């Protein structure tokens, strides 16, 4: 009901969607520049515009954090929680654009709307984290999803890419339908689509069965987006076909945004009956993800299964008590973003034209041929395993300790066993890089500046989170307080 009396929004309310506005403007600029430019030259210019847009959005986010509060008739809410995810999404966007620079040239893909779509996708993801109204969340989810459907098919010459795009689109629409149906049922059960109001209604008494079903359907829809088992089946095929930088993008930024939505719906709306649901889905995701990854020889598929497993680890935090679970989940999204974007940046560099070199075999002897690149990838892989001094370690540590404080011993044991299984396939890549001779020398081109910067940012972030996790965790804990208030 907040601000319902007023007809036009105040200026400060525009600040509360400032990053989204900035990203949209830059996206439109790219779309308008594209037809005006020479095709060969447009690549770099459009990328630069996209990068500037992402950086401007980061600045806008920082500026926005000075003006917390709700806006637009209670539809968006800027708090430290939304600022955290805005920052994460825009930072990932910037790094992915840096990675794409070289990739697009090597793959000879016309940039065109590529960078525009990344920015538009980021708009949806940002909006997801600040939206506090189910219909707006749905719209934001669609903005983000449709952009990624198209981006997944951007390697137009490769049949596998088109296949990936179509599969993603059809299954994604299927899942979105679940979500939308859940929103409708929720509205039926509570008479509102505002998360705050729903929270009040659900907390005030025994919720109706309808609300349970609504939660279930929304959970299915969102579970699909984060690739949680058993809604994960699309992931390996789509990741294998989509352009490598885009996989890095869509395995981190939209996932983080969807996790933000899940946090809001499950905790802010006091969703009932979630514990065992999450327990089973988390255990299933970790186990299927890790076991599936064991036999993969394609690095992109391997990382796809790994992302299923990591969704599982993350969901463990959702089963914990909100006060520990929310900051643990937030920390996890951040460190997963850092290491996974980095890993995919390396993959996209090594892939070469047509993504020819993406199998384990192609990585043999990389430690000798390109020691710095191999070392960087090793950092990301060690972090994915959860070795101390990397962000992945503290991410797992906080999640598992939050779960332990909620007495979820069984789930933690499953999680830790899964981490051990996971170590196998990540280490396999490291072993192949350093201890196996290449059967045929796969060419490694020198790392260009943009990619170098992207890798440096990811590696520094990964290690920063692993050595000095205090500051980020403290911020996340504060955000959790904002969310639960």
């Amino acid at each position, binding site marked *: 009901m907040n601000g319902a009396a007023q007809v036009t929004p105040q200026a400060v309310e525009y600040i509360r969607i400032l990053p989204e506005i900035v990203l949209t403007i830059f996206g439109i600029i790219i779309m308008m520049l594209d037809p005006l430019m020479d095709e060969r030259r447009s690549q770099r210019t459009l990328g630069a515009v996209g990068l500037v847009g992402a950086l401007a959005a980061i600045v806008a986010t920082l500026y926005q954090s000075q003006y917390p509060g709700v806006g637009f008739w209670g539809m968006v809410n800027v708090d430290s929680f939304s600022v955290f995810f805005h920052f994460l999404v825009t930072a990932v966007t910037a790094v992915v654009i840096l990675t794409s620079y070289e990739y697009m040239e090597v793959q000879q893909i016309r940039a065109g709307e590529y960078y525009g779509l990344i920015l538009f996708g980021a708009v949806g993801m940002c909006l997801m984290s600040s939206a506090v109204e189910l219909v707006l969340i749905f719209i934001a989810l669609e903005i983000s999803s449709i952009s990624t459907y198209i981006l997944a098919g951007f390697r137009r010459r490769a049949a596998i890419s088109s296949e990936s795009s179509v*599969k993603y689109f*059809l*299954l994604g629409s*299927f*899942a979105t339908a*679940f979500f939308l149906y859940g929103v409708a049922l929720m509205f039926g059960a509570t008479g509102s689509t505002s998360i705050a109001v729903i929270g009040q209604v659900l907390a005030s008494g025994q*919720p*109706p*069965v*309808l*609300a*349970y*079903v609504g*939660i*279930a*359907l929304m*959970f*299915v829809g969102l*579970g*699909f987006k984060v690739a949680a*088992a*058993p*809604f994960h*089946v*699309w992931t*390996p*095929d789509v990741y294998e076909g989509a352009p490598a930088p885009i996989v890095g993008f869509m395995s981190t930024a939209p996932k983080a945004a969807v996790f933000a939505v899940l946090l809001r719906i499950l905790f802010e709306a006091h969703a*009932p*009956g979630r514990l*065992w*649901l999450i327990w089973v*889905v988390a255990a299933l995701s970790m186990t*299927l993800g890790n*076991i*599936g*990854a*064991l*036999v993969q020889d394609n690095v992109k598929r391997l990382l796809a299964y790994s992302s299923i497993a990591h969704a599982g680890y993350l969901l463990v935090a959702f089963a914990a008590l909100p006060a520990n679970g929310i900051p643990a989940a937030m920390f996890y999204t951040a460190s997963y973003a850092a290491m996974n974007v980095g890993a995919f940046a390396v993959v996209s560099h090594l892939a070469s034209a047509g993504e020819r070199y993406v199998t384990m075999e192609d990585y043999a002897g990389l430690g000798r041929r390109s020691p710095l690149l191999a070392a960087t990838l090793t950092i990301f892989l060690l972090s994915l395993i959860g070795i101390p001094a990397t962000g992945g370690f503290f991410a797992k540590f906080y999640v598992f300790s939050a779960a332990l404080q909620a007495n979820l011993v069984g789930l933690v044991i499953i999680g830790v066993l899964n981490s051990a*299984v996971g170590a*196998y396939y990540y280490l396999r890549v490291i072993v192949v890089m350093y201890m196996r001779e290449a059967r045929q020398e796969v060419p490694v081109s020198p790392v260009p500046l943009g990619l170098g910067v992207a890798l440096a940012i990811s590696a520094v972030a990964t290690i920063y989170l692993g050595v*000095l996790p*205090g*500051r980020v*965790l*403290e911020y996340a804990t504060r955000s959790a307080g904002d969310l639960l208030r």
Partner: protein
Amino acid sequence: MTPSLHLVLIPILPLIGAAVNGLLGKRFSRQAVATVALAFCGAAFAMALWIALRFSSLPIPLTEYVAPWIRAGSFQADFAFYLDQLSLVMMLVVTGVGFLIHIYAVGYMWEEGGFYRFFSYLNLFMFFMLTLVLANNYLLMFIGWEGVGLASYLLIGFWFTKDAAAAAGKKAFIVNRIGDFGFLIALFLLIKHFGSLNFADVFGTIVENSTQYPVETAGAGLLTAIGLLLMVGAAGKSAQLPLYVWLPDAMEGPTPVSALIHAATMVTAGVYMVARSHVIFDRAPMALTVVAIVGTLTALFAATIGICQTDIKKVLAYSTISQLGYMFLACGVAAYSAGIFHLMTHAFFKGLLFLAAGSVIHAIGGEQDMRKMGGLRDHIPATFWTMTAATFAIAGFPPFAGFFSKDEILWRASQVSLAYWGIGVFTAFLTSFYMFRLWFLTFFGEYRGDQEATQAHGGIHATGSRAGVPAPHGHSGIHESPKIMLIPLAILAILSVMGGWIGAHRFELFLAPVFSSHQTAHLVALTSEQAGQITAMEHLEWVFTAISVAAAALGLYLAWLLYRDRPQLPQRIANALGGFYHAVANKYYVDELYAVLFVKPVVDGSTSILWHGVDQNVIDDTLNDSAEAARDVSDSVRHMQSGNLRSYAGWVALGAAGVIAYMIWMGTR
């Protein structure tokens, strides 16, 4: 608010140097590597000096908070640095002596392969050592503690192609692990009982709750346990009985390393740690007694071994162990400032002794055996004179630095027990004897080395060439070291002469805020009770001093008699002593004893039971089988991935049905 001192820069600067040289040094010229290493180390020294100059205007003690680190529940450990009189002294010694040794090392290592690697390690060591002495909590201190151990390991094994060097590195690391085990348990006890590792928190709690943490005179309690465990850690790092065995072997490292790490700085970390923890030790008289006894016995024990060593660096190594024993003796009689004073003067003269010994070794082509030296006085006069200053300093002749600090320790020890004093004076006599033995053997008499060989080798470091690094040298024959090596020698010589003039008393007054602010009732009581006795002994101080100087003089005379006047005597004495001589010459067979008692059982047990039995049969087989099984399961999971869109939708629908059914069941329950 005082403006930030940026204390963090002091450790960080050498770290940057280490990173630059470590990552890029391979492509640098030697000049560039040396410039980087010296610049960053020198900058840290300059900062330390700058802080020292404005020290009196600072609100001491001050804590500088850098970043949060670990926060788990109520436990908190941060990256924060702590500056008080004690850490100031340590910081100055480490950066000052460290910088001089860096300069020296440029000359000493110039011909060696892996030049950049050496300086990267050396800077890395400075980073960890400074972290150790500036940390405001035990955990950060422990990071530094382990880090200097790592740097020490890397530098001992610098010539890693040489088996002895690699083995010595390993030995140092493993023996230190034993000490760290004690240190770690002490930290766990602190966390358990105080919920914190911050110096201020822990010590504050102890001081404020004197009823809860009384002086444990009646029986050993928590603080005694912590104190003893800390001492185990200190004994490992500072090479005290029974964990001293790694230090003599550590001499396999390049000589500047021996000077910096294994004489002047790292090995004194244990002394610093005990002094820093004095609040705990003050309330644990039993632990203090153990510290004093370990120190005294180590001092004596190592000095006796030092007499029979023939390798110039080994003599100095045992001498270091012995001198560290003095420092622990000082701490053990609660004369912490005397211990730190000796730590400082020792850093000057022992650093100098090692550097001068390095210069000698350099001069005669890598020879370390004193039996093959002699008469070098005229060939390398600068080295000779600086070494002379250091020798007189360590022997305890006034007015050299060592006299003041050692005399203070002996005087303070005599007030607690005459036994400590007696052994201390006897050790001082032994110290004087073996040091002048070294002096006479090296610089006087006839040159006993192989002149031809020296010329043929052209002054290559034997160690370097053994490492397979050809190091051509322009000079031939015995030659004085280059200026870059002599200048640090000269500066350290001046410090060895004058470093003690500040006076033990004034030094104690300076450190008083650190050590007396937590003065316990126990010690006050002790002082007042024995006040009469002490005043009675006050006039005796001159007598005590005279006796220790006489002991030093006696050592000098005996060394002259045996190694200058009648050089055939030592052999006759050795023959007469027979078995005892052999025992001492072979370092009391302690290494062999440890090998039989600890090393062999562990190695044999590991091989037969743990490796062949447990690892290969149980763990490997189980793992292989379960890995096999996991792969089979994984293969079947792959079948879920048919690639068929309808089947995917089917999976999603099936999952959704499950979720909805469960939630309906939950809702209707």
